[in-house]
């Protein structure tokens, strides 16, 4: 957005809808698992978690600190992980980011990306340990998934920034 078409008094969304949009976009990310493909390898990055991290890191008051649990439960229902896995991990991520935020006060996008990458690696690695027996041969694929998810974070950040600009202050 250039400075010329900056309209500070343009009407924004009503507050209720503006509050729903972050939730809806995270759930839409979780619902990417219903794409009509029968995958034989678990290679799709966790889109819901990427959106959650982008909202949390870029627009910190868009989601309440407890939003990780209900959104994680929804992700569990549609993703095939045992129910409660994402609910627990996403809550821990939300709490962890809050703790980091209190210490790392001035952040750049690079720090956001690093935090998001660490959170994605944590959730995917622990999710693998929870859902699968140790003898399962999926570790290489989890690494690839972590890498892809981390690379997708800037894209999600762009999308979130665009939505956030449209929706105005919640």
């Amino acid at each position, binding site marked *: 957005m250039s400075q010329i078409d900056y309209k500070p008094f343009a009407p924004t969304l009503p507050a209720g809808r503006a509050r729903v949009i972050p939730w809806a976009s995270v759930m839409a990310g979780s619902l990417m*698992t219903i794409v*009509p493909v*029968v995958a034989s390898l678990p290679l799709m990055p966790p889109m819901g978690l990427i959106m959650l991290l982008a909202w949390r890191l870029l627009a910190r008051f868009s989601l309440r600190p407890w939003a990780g649990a209900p959104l994680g439960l929804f992700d569990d229902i549609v*993703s*095939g992980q045992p*129910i409660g896995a994402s609910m627990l991990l996403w809550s821990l991520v939300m709490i962890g980011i809050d703790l980091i935020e209190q210490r790392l006060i001035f*952040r750049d996008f690079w720090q956001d990306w690093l935090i998001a990458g660490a959170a994605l690696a944590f959730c995917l690695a622990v999710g693998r340990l929870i859902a699968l*027996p140790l003898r399962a041969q999926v570790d290489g694929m989890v690494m690839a998934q972590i890498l892809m998810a981390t690379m997708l974070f800037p894209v999600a950040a762009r999308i979130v920034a665009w939505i956030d600009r449209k929706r105005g202050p919640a």
Partner: protein
Amino acid sequence: MAPARDRRTGFSRRRQYGAFFGWVLAVAGAVVGAVLLVVSTVNPGAFGMVRMAAATITAPVSSVLGAIVNGIAAVPGSIGSWIDVHGENATLRAELKRSRATVMQARTIVYDNHRLRQLLAIRDRSDAVVVTARLVSSTPSSGRRFALLNAGIVQGVRSGMPVRGPNGLIGRVTEIGPIAARVLLLTDPESVVPVRRIGDGMPGIAAGRGDGRIDVRSAERTNVRFAAGDMFVTSGAGGLYPPGVPVARIERTGVDQAVAIPFATPDSLDFAIVQQPYMPLPPAPPAMPVQP
């Protein structure tokens, strides 16, 4: 990014309590998640109802999306086949002529087989087809390998039924909803299928690896050599999977354990056939009369 001033709650009691309860709820959410996780680890089918309720909504959506994608993807193929339809026609006619003798021979064998089986009075168990449906989606982001079948209780699908494709075994139904069912694929790390080798009937066990392939282990003997190219079919042991359904082909030579590639590649599945369990479970014992 500059620090957020909004974090400071100031002197407003309302904001202080609001922020505090937000934190309490966040921790409570994590605790509830941990409890649910323990429950679903101990009893994996505990939340099947919830999952299948969601699948009742998502399966039709996936199905329509799949139909659209298939329709678009079929356009180049249709154009291509239109162009070389004449050459293909000639080839097929020639092949039909060549294979006529083989077909006659096979028919004779089938008839003989049928007759001999009647002589031996072997009772084949039911391998009746319950329904033929499409697998519409799967779990692409989770390590577990489940697929969603576009048929459920209404179509007669029940939990535990084996599912096969045109090329081989796909898996079995684990959870059922009104119009959708969840299928545990052969390649899931929790899936185990009793198999036997084509040729010598050596029994084995096919366990999923999670990476799209299968581990085949020998079941009875030790020091068994698996040669690359050995083919395995279901043995019918356990009574769930009907015998003789192709399962996998050995990829690399191994002793006692070898990696195999399943015949049914689920990413190119068109149809899945749900069958009755090979040997149905015994009927439930009659309820004990209540003592007065």
